[in-house]
């Protein structure tokens, strides 16, 4: 059966492989993308009649390459060419393909395509936009919606970013082991940024941005299939799945933030959790810890706790201590303080974060956590000051609303400690 939904899914899933192989042939991003677009149009004509090809990506690469070569010839000769059906017999395309395509190339091709999007001259948001356009094939309109900008602004942004990529030149040589590891790390960071763009959205924007999380998970899955032995990629995949599994419980009907410990855990996506836990188990076996694995291990402890009060905070404290060593950052110490508050009490946690004040003076979550800790210690006046600072720094209306809610409770003088955790999430 070749219905339109299947063709759509097949074209989407073949895209990274096909575009990256075409990029290797033509060494030009625009040519590769156009060739892929044209091949997709042919697929829409041919597949419903002739049935789906065994290997959609191989079909698209072969057809796309022929189309681009024909187009180049036509431009060079400036003369009419014979009708399409006499120059390329698409029905034979597959038979010829089997030998021509070398599976070993795919891995570096796809990595290269992802890697050129991570060009260091490009700001993070442009890296993400261009990766979503080129690798994922999201429309400019979809990307613009996710970034809350106009379509024409996003079109310009992507065109500029592609210009920078083109000017930098595409690295065609096959990477050696060190380069491959560096590319992989850069790509993983970029994918994590895509996820965070989706994950940090809230309230009215959550719907528009949620596809970014799905896309990041899809790209990580692609990467993991290419590099099945990399524990950090397993860790990244586990981290994204375990965090995204909570999506249905993260906001209430009004779009307000629901804290991790107040979430209805029955809403969590059990299938994503199962996959995330399987991956973190696989990763740990390698005994090569890295930041994604450790963060995934924290997320796994939350996922394994049926109720918030079952959370193994002592273990989370240890994991954050490991993360502080691997990747020292005041934000990680702030995260650790949340666990420390549970294990050793709010005074110990407050002592831990107070030295961070100067470095996190512009960080919403710092004041949220500080206020909550002060509140637990019965220092209501200071808590109020911290909450006021948090509101001033809130990035979203949902964040501000959440702090305001704590303030309201404080004013009612019934501040229960169940709200202690304003969980920082960005590192």
């Amino acid at each position, binding site marked *: 059966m070749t219905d339109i939904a*299947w063709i759509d899914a097949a074209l989407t899933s073949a895209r990274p492989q096909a575009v990256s192989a075409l990029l290797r042939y033509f060494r030009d991003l625009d040519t590769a993308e156009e060739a892929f677009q044209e091949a997709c149009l042919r697929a829409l004509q041919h597949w419903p009649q002739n049935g789906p090809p065994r290997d959609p990506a191989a079909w698209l690469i072969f057809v796309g390459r022929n189309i681009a070569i024909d187009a180049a010839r036509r431009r060079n000769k400036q003369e009419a060419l014979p009708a399409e059906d006499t120059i390329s017999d698409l029905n034979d395309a597959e038979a010829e393909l089997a030998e021509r395509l070398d599976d070993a190339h795919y891995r570096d091709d796809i990595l290269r395509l992802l890697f050129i999007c991570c060009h260091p001259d490009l700001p993070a948001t442009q890296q993400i936009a261009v990766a979503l356009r080129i690798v994922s094939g999201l429309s400019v309109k979809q990307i613009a919606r996710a970034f809350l900008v106009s379509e024409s602004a996003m079109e310009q942004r992507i065109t500029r970013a592609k210009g920078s990529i083109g000017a930098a030149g595409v690295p065609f040589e096959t990477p050696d082991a060190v380069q491959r590891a560096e590319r992989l790390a850069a790509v993983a960071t970029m994918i994590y940024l895509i996820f965070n763009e989706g994950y940090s959205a809230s309230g009215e924007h959550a719907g528009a941005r949620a596809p970014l999380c799905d896309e990041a998970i899809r790209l990580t*899955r692609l990467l993991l299939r290419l590099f099945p*032995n990399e524990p950090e990629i397993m860790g990244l995949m586990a981290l994204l799945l375990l965090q995204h599994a909570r999506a249905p419980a993260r906001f209430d009907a009004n779009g307000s933030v629901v804290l991790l410990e107040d979430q209805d855990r029955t809403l969590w996506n059990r299938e994503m959790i199962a996959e995330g836990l399987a991956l973190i188990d696989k990763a740990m076996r390698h005994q090569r810890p890295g930041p994604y694995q450790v963060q995934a291990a924290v997320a796994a402890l939350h996922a394994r706790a049926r109720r918030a009060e079952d959370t193994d905070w002592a273990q989370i404290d240890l994991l954050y201590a490991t993360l502080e060593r691997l990747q020292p950052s005041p934000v990680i110490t702030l995260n650790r303080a949340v666990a420390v508050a549970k294990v050793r009490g709010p005074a110990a946690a407050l002592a831990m974060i107070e030295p961070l004040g100067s470095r996190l003076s512009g960080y919403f979550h710092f004041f949220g956590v500080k206020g909550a800790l002060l509140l637990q210690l019965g220092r209501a006046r200071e808590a109020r000051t911290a909450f006021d600072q948090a509101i001033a720094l809130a990035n979203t209306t949902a964040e501000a609303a959440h702090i305001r809610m704590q303030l309201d409770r404080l004013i009612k003088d019934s501040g229960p400690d169940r709200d202690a955790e304003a969980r920082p999430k960005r590192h």
Partner: protein
Amino acid sequence: MLYAILCYDSEDVVGAWSKEEDDAVMARLAVVQEKLAKQGRLGPVARLLPTTAATTIRKGREPLVIDGPFAETKEQLLGFYIVDCSTLEEAIETASDLARASSSAGAYEIRPLSVFRPGAGAT
């Protein structure tokens, strides 16, 4: 005779389905399963997690642990059914019902079972 019906498909393609599409396919497959269950012919049904979650143990003097599925192929084993069929014809018919219900381009492999222990405890 008990038959295993093994579901093969491109994980990439199935993974690119929207949630709505996935739900729709599962709902259509559920109709076939319900029919089999009513006839008392349906055994265990499993949908496997993606092959990225798989680990392979290579047999040898020292078993070797490898990350990933047994074979890197264009299509992967994504799940299976155990169905009671009196003849191969009936098994083919059953697998064809499933094939019509799922709108994808993969395959069903029919494998007669030699030993079947339904087990107890794992849910």
